[in-house]
């Protein structure tokens, strides 16, 4: 059985954001609201030093698909809504989820509620929560027009497009639905609907710098295994003992 994981080469990454945009388009994630980012792919950013010896660095972040995933442990339902697939993907079953958010609180890479510091790359959350009894894409159910009688409302646009959101990426629903329902959490699935059909995750495919490598860490011939063998790598918050399957190599800034 494969042991799926990802390597992000920070030296190759140019911080362009393409991965995060591709993720939103691929997975139909909604816009930020009420402390929830709904960004399955996001960034940590920092500027250090004093001008002119300034260093700026960017680190793409996503669910680490931990081998010892605290979110899975915390999930109280049976069978679990948050669970591990045999290939090691930390997956979420909307049908089982009761919206208790224990996973969000247990995950060391998540925040129950994001503040202002999430707007400049100081904080992020890999798990987001869709509030109960509220539309999951409010922009596209809204009935207010910017210019009444002049521009379309969100609801009208969705109606004309025949989808919510209107640019919905509609894959045949199987293990994962293209759009979430109210009252459940959501997170990166390593693009399960793609990767279980022989494709690469959207963020990997779109990266112009080939900074992201996805594959089977146990297959000695895979690129990910080779890179992990050849280069010094690290994972986020190793001290928490979660054993992430997302690794980082290289250094973002060329500056010493």
């Amino acid at each position, binding site marked *: 059985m494969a042991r799926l994981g990802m390597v992000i080469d920070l030296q190759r990454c140019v911080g362009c954001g393409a991965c995060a945009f591709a993720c939103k388009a691929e997975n139909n994630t909604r816009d930020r609201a009420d402390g929830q980012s709904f960004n399955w792919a996001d960034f940590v950013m920092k500027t250090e030093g004093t001008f002119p010896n300034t260093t700026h660095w*960017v680190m793409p972040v996503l669910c680490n698909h931990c081998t010892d995933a605290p979110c899975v442990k915390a999930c109280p339902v049976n069978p679990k809504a948050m669970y591990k697939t045999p290939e090691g993907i930390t997956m979420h079953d909307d049908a089982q989820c009761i919206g208790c958010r224990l996973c969000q609180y247990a995950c060391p890479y998540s925040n129950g509620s994001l503040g202002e510091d999430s707007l400049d790359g100081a904080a992020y959350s890999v798990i987001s929560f869709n509030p109960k009894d509220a539309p999951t894409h409010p922009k596209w159910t809204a009935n207010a027009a910017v210019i009444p009688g002049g521009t379309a409302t969100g609801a009208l646009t969705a109606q004309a497009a025949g989808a919510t959101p209107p640019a919905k990426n509609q894959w045949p629903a199987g293990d994962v639905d293209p759009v979430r329902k109210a009252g459940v959490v959501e997170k990166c699935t390593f693009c399960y609907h793609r990767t279980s059909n022989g494709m690469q995750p959207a963020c990997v495919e779109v990266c112009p710098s080939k900074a992201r490598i996805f594959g089977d860490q146990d297959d000695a011939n895979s690129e990910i295994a080779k890179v992990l063998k050849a280069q010094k790598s690290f994972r986020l918050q190793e001290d928490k003992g979660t054993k992430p399957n997302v690794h980082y190599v290289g250094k973002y800034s060329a500056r010493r």
Partner: protein
Amino acid sequence: MGKAAPKTIVWMGPGVAMNPRGTYASMAVYALNGLLGSVDVEGGVWQSSSVPIAGFPKTDAYLDDVAKGAGKFKKLDGRGAKDMPAMMNARPGSGVVTNNIANGMLKDPGAAKVVLCSWANFNFSCTGAQRWDKALAAVPFFVHMVTNPSEMTQFADIVLPATFNSAEGWSIVTNMGNGYGYAALQQGAVRRLWDVKQEETEVMWLLAEKLKAKGFPNLFDYYSKEFKDPETGKAPTTALEFSETAAKMTSVTLWKPKEPLKGDAALAGWADFRRKGIFSGPKYTLKKGWGGKFNTATKKFEFYSETAKKGLTEHAKKYETTVDDILTVSGYVARGELAFVPHYEPPKRHGSLAEYPFAFIDYKSRLNREGRSANLPWYQEFKKVDPGDVAWDDVLKMNPADGAKLGLKTGDTVSVASPGGSMVVKLKLWEGVRPGTVAKCYGQGHWAYGATAAKDYGKALPRGGSNNDILVDDYDRLSGSTARNGGFTGVRIAKA
């Protein structure tokens, strides 16, 4: 650089060229590449490449006397005026000076009686933006053809919803990249959700129909007689057919070439072009200009520009004066032979250092291609990918040392004033900017660009501030390029 030569690129970005005396800075870049031997070689700088595109049929037979005469009027953008040589390819008066149109309109308020404008949003996108508000307010009849209402739309008498062209319209887009020239086909790939029209073809066809009904058939005759489907020979009968026919005609040289083309595998016809959507020419030929084949007056790589000399001399002759006089009125310090070689010109600055101590640096967001993205929630959400920027906001970045001097801190609301205007934005102290300068991305500060771009569309409240309210309208007059870069506008910062 010399050590790495010829695999060294001195990049001619807009920062070099788009400032009030930018011509000579860009000539310096060009000459530096020449000295390094990096022109037209691997690892160096290359010239452009393209694929052959067909033109439209001649209009001569359809022009009446009014049209013939009006076509010769002086352009409102002032190109070719004594103080605006605007020399594209060293041809005086050939460069388009869009931003100067507002000045032309203000000088001669009666000149533009009807304005038809497609997609542009000059009231936001041009430096000295306030001039456009004044100029457009005085236009008796203004039609704006746009995908979404913008600042400029607020001045329109009629708004025509335009196609989102890359998915809803027909046209050929040519460009180059990575050593290949190419042509791509924009085609009606999706069902149109709304009643929108492609403004360059469909709207023109519909206009032509109406003009014909009113007894002015020339435009309709031109469209219906001269445009024919290259496959079937059929003339268009509707606006949409006209649009597709025009796209087919301009690209026939690619999908039905007279001689086989170099580059991609031959296209089997229009249907094949539609399926593939693109045709790329052959890989760039290195040393294309070497050996006397440069596109210059001497056909050589010019350190001393005989080409500029030719253009400037021609321009001076038109005004019966000297090249020195042209340079003087156009704001350059060069005299004599210096006019034709790269040399140092002191940077021009609007506002004295005493009154406006900071140089304002306007730069492009990596999330903008041209700049129409601010109403997209994802643009706002990931605005932080512009180093130092903050999502859903528009921060003016200042070095912390300057902040300490002024007693300002991150999060303060500040007013930014220049000789041209002022804006109010949020401050961020950031080590990424040089002391003495303040920097802000272009793109935010919309007050009428949709629900996301503006903080409150109905109340005309902007999200952030528009750099173009600060930047003074000025030009590199030899090229006609609008100045945006090089810190040419000084600003004063104070707590608001």
